[in-house]
């Protein structure tokens, strides 16, 4: 098994997927994150303030982070950022070091609803804090006000026969099930029983008949919106996607449906590879990132919500399901393929 893993890693390196972090000096803080979460000016400011060296690697998907951290047992990255659901398997595999809140004083300055970490599901385990919530965005129900008779308030409008052929949804097995389950009234939309999954499957086959197309990337949506009539859409990229559409001249509004919506929460975590001075430096970065100015700038630049600055993306009345790890990704993916193969 170990050999297998080595072989895979070796191939990944051969294929040029491996980046050159292996050669980095031990004083360098290596951050693996998403585009927009660690802009150059912030990195420079941090380096100057703490006389440190920071190396940022941007990733394209979660598999990349997992391969990097898992393959090196944490030695190839010090700080990783991904959603709370994803981070659970890192805790399971003992790849994360707990966060020492005493070293992150700025945590006390974040928005009210993020201050009590115990209230945010998945952040703590066995009384220890394993991640620091940072950036979030809700799944939104987007619509074209010209093409709907009245503003939709429920995910059910995706299934409305009036909009047949004018509906878009994201091609992702995780969240279509989650949304179908929320609409179905499931207790925990991330932990579905086989019964619930089957009911969702039926619903999603119906949804498929409504669709113009699935989309994969936010850029695609702009074009789809321009050359087709789109009435309602599940916006997986949240407010930033709506903003991009508006910039491109599309007429679009978005709401958080009354049933509630899955909301991903990207959190920073420190790997077990960051020890001693490196760990201290990692804590300094997390504290730095939570600064009001940085939170505000990040929110402004990306249109995502941040834990340190209120963008109004979510109001206290909105029903939010913080994204959790799902019961069985393979099962959902198989069912999703079955749905898509249904004529």
């Amino acid at each position: 098994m170990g050999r297998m893993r080595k072989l895979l890693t070796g191939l990944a390196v051969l294929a040029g997927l491996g980046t050159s972090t292996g050669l980095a000096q031990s004083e360098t803080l290596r951050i693996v994150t998403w585009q927009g979460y660690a802009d150059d000016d912030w990195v420079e400011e941090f380096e100057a303030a703490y006389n440190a060296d920071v190396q940022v690697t941007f990733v394209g998907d979660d598999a990349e982070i997992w391969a990097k951290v898992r393959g090196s047992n944490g030695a190839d990255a010090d700080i990783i950022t991904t959603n709370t659901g994803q981070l659970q398997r890192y805790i399971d595999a003992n790849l994360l070091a707990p966060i020492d809140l005493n070293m992150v004083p700025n945590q006390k300055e974040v928005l009210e609803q993020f201050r009590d970490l115990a209230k945010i599901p998945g952040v703590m385990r066995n009384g220890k804090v394993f991640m620091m919530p940072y950036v979030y965005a809700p799944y939104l129900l987007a619509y074209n006000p010209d093409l709907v008779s009245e503003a939709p308030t429920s995910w059910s409008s995706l299934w409305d026969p009036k909009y047949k052929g004018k509906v878009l949804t994201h091609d992702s097995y995780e969240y279509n099930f989650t949304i179908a389950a929320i609409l179905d009234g499931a207790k925990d939309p991330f932990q579905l029983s086989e019964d619930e999954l089957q009911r969702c499957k039926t619903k999603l086959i119906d949804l498929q008949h409504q669709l113009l197309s699935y989309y994969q990337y936010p850029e695609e949506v702009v074009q789809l919106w321009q050359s087709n009539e789109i009435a309602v859409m599940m916006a997986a990229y949240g407010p930033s996607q709506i903003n991009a559409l508006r910039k491109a001249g599309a007429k679009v509004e978005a709401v958080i449906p009354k049933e509630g919506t899955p909301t991903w929460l990207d959190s920073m975590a420190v790997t077990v590879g960051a020890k001693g001075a490196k760990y201290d430096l990692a804590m300094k970065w997390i504290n730095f990132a939570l600064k009001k100015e940085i939170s505000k700038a990040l929110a402004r630049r990306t249109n995502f919500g941040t834990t340190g600055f209120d963008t109004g993306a979510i109001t206290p009345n909105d029903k939010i399901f913080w994204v959790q790890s799902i019961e069985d990704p393979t099962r959902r993916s198989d069912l999703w393929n079955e749905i898509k193969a249904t004529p």
Partner: protein
Amino acid sequence: MNVNPDKSERIVRQFGRPLFYCFVFAVPLLLIAAPFASFLAISVGEVKGSDIVMSLTLKNFVRIVEDPLYFQVVWKTISLCLGVSIVTTCLGYPIAYLIAISTHSIRYALICIFSIPLLMNYVIKIYAMRSILGGSGVLNKFLEIIGISGLSNLFVFNLNAVFLVLASILLPFAIFPIFIALERIPNSLLHAAADLGASRFFTFTRIILPLSMPGVAVAFSFTFVLAIGDFITPQMVGGPTGFTLGRVIYSQFGLAFNWPFGAALSIVLMTIVMVTIALTVFVTPRRAR
């Protein structure tokens, strides 16, 4: 170090050449064989938790055969790609013929025109096609204007659109092998046929067509292989009904993290491809090769 120049030269001559050939053949072999071997290995493994375990199981293959879902998708994909290959080859042939019989400047102009799509980025091509194909795109507007009611939305996010986009993107891959095959037919054979009294049509059916069959076979397998391996086009223009084998395979990687099943599906795909190539080679007239 003191090296006898004669000796070292002899050593270079004796071992240099084989070494060079080893290098030349080993590098591509390694680059093809290594990933292939790893795929084979992964395809008999299974996922346990978040790891791939080498368990030497055939259950991934059994699942492909037994689950009607995959059989249906495989069959749908094969028929789609056969259709694409047939159409591109049939369209490519007259174009290749036109290029082959054109004189210099026109020939180069035609070659340039038909190779421009090859120089463009694949995704850009698909995006361009997508704006032509969309509900308010040029093609659909045209179909609406000519007013045959059954025709509107004929090519909007469905299997027809996948077919159309694949056919137009892969057309150059059909044209050029056929053109090269036509180019290889010596002029004297055409003169000989005419000299023996054959009309242009007779010469075409009895000489040009059979002698260009190897090119047709290459065009056919080229387009088939490229079409069947494609997962971007079905994803981008296939809408809810354009679900193909390429997309199933794609879905097994990434977050689903079912590499073993994906690898098994890839091996099925590869087998289809190899069988198709073998069949086309088999049906190509032997003497014309």
